[in-house]
């Protein structure tokens, strides 16, 4: 989407990628004595030394708890923790750093919305609209909320091509309180028209919750352009550490929300019988936070911005286009998901009657890492009529020759399973 409006920018050159690869120590690993071909970044990306070292440095030089620390290293830690939040805010176009809440992962961010905003605003007979392509993390929390509040779930259908069926969107949204949807499908690679979906949600009086887990790592994202109300994503998929993610929320919504977890660090005045709470973001960050992880996330944002999200996006699209061209030529291979114009570098496929796990095992024996299974998308799998798919996903450190390695691996699997 952004490609159409942004000024043309170059992609990454082979030399750029070679330099980038130097930053990722794991790419020098040799599983089974073969070069590591990591094609599972949609599950979790690898980390550059800049990110690893930032956390190492934190623990070696200035680790301390942040709240109320009056001494030097605690001040350094507090500053680093707040700086990282400001970096994230700038990265996603958030008007204020106070709108970015540190959570464990996108899953927790979505649960926070369902618990805190949801239990306050969704009641008996209300409608929550989702899509058939939601990750379990943007489905199960709403099921639980709906059950608890006697609300109703409705689903935007997925077309056979893997796109959202928008024909009856407005009627689905009629009277809805929430429309929660993914910006990019983690199974099909589909890039959804976020701005349009948000606009229709708002027209119906619903808030728009965007699962941006697969979007923030791989394309420029600006919450002011999307105009959404909440957005969740995980650091570990965007070169950052495990154990931290972000829930961004519109400040007026966050202000009005009750706490989710409670305890140290999120209070104002505590008496034995009752307490008052701090303003956001502190209100939603109970207990000692993931400080080292915030530092690492800040370093990841720095890295992505230094390379440039537009260039990362273009490069990934080039790799994906190259892979799709080869895959669609290869007999016995079925690719799921839409045409190139509506997708990104996350590709689900099956090969003949080879089960996804068998294919992944054969690829692993050639050093190639892909994901196999339902990708936390069981209802979508049912819809596609397959128990599981094998998924390859590309990122800034992958190369065209790794796409070729994937193709060679697939051909080997075909040979083993005697598929022509």
């Amino acid at each position, binding site marked *: 989407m952004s490609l159409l409006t942004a000024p043309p920018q170059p992609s990454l050159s082979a030399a750029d990628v070679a330099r980038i690869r130097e930053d990722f120590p794991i790419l020098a690993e040799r599983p089974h004595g073969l070069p590591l071909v990591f094609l599972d970044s949609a599950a979790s990306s690898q980390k550059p030394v800049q990110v690893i070292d930032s956390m190492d440095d934190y623990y070696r030089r200035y680790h301390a708890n942040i709240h109320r620390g009056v001494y030097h290293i605690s001040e350094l830690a507090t500053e680093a923790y707040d700086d990282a939040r400001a970096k994230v805010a700038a990265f996603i176009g958030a008007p204020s750093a106070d709108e970015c809440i540190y959570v464990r992962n996108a899953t927790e961010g979505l649960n926070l919305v369902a618990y805190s905003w949801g239990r306050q605003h969704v009641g008996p007979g209300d409608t929550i609209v989702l899509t058939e392509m939601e990750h379990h993390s943007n489905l199960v929390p709403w099921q639980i909320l709906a059950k608890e509040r006697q609300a109703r779930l409705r689903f935007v259908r997925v077309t056979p091509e893997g796109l959202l069926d928008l024909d009856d969107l407005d009627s689905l949204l009629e009277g809805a309180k929430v429309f929660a949807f993914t910006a990019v499908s983690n199974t099909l690679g589909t890039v959804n028209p976020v701005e349009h979906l948000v606009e229709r949600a708002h027209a119906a009086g619903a808030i728009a919750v965007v699962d941006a887990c697969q979007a923030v790592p791989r394309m420029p994202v600006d919450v002011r352009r999307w105009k959404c109300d909440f957005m969740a994503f995980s650091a570990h998929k965007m070169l950052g550490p495990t154990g931290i993610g972000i829930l961004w929320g519109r400040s007026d919504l966050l202000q009005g929300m009750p706490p989710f977890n409670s305890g140290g660090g999120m209070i104002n005045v505590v008496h034995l019988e009752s307490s008052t709470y701090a303003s956001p973001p502190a209100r939603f960050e109970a207990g000692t936070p993931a400080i080292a992880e915030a530092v690492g996330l800040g370093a990841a944002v720095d890295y992505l911005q230094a390379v440039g999200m537009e260039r990362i996006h273009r490069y990934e699209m080039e790799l994906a286009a190259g892979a799709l061209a080869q895959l669609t030529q290869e007999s016995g291979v079925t690719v799921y998901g839409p045409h190139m114009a509506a997708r990104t570098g996350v590709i689900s496929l099956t090969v003949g*009657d*080879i*089960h*996804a*796990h*068998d294919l992944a*095992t*054969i690829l*692993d*024996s*050639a050093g190639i890492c892909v994901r*196999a*299974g*339902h990708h936390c998308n069981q209802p979508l799998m049912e819809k596609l009529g397959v*128990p*599981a798919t094998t998924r390859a996903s590309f990122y800034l450190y992958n190369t065209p020759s790794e796409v070729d390695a994937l193709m060679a691996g697939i051909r*080997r699997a075909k040979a*083993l*399973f*005697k598929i022509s």
Partner: protein
Amino acid sequence: MDELYRDFILDHYRSPRNSGTLENPDATFEDDNPLCGDRIRMDLRIQDGVVSDVRFKGRGCAISQASASLLTEAVKGRALSEVAAIGKDEVLGNVGISISPARLKCALLGLKVLKQALAVKYEPSTEEKAYPDGTPS
């Protein structure tokens, strides 16, 4: 790597032995491997302490299905006491290829279902009741 998928594994995957179900089986159980969606059901006919017939039905990867198929061959006609003694090692030995940790559950799903079928039949397990909403992962 050719170690990984020998021809007889493919043969059992595509042409499973003792495939299907039994009418009024003496013991039966169905279970899945929630992490990858493999699913297997086993039906047993037991006469005079001997497994006189066995059928399995399932879906999933070559390793889980071939392993279950091989297991039915190993079980048919054997005394319950012998069947009870079948362990992990025997099953993996029959499969005869090197299995990575992530795939062990696939290779052993058939055995797990078989054991549970016999346990439910002969010594109702309280553990099963303790997991109303899923199997231990």
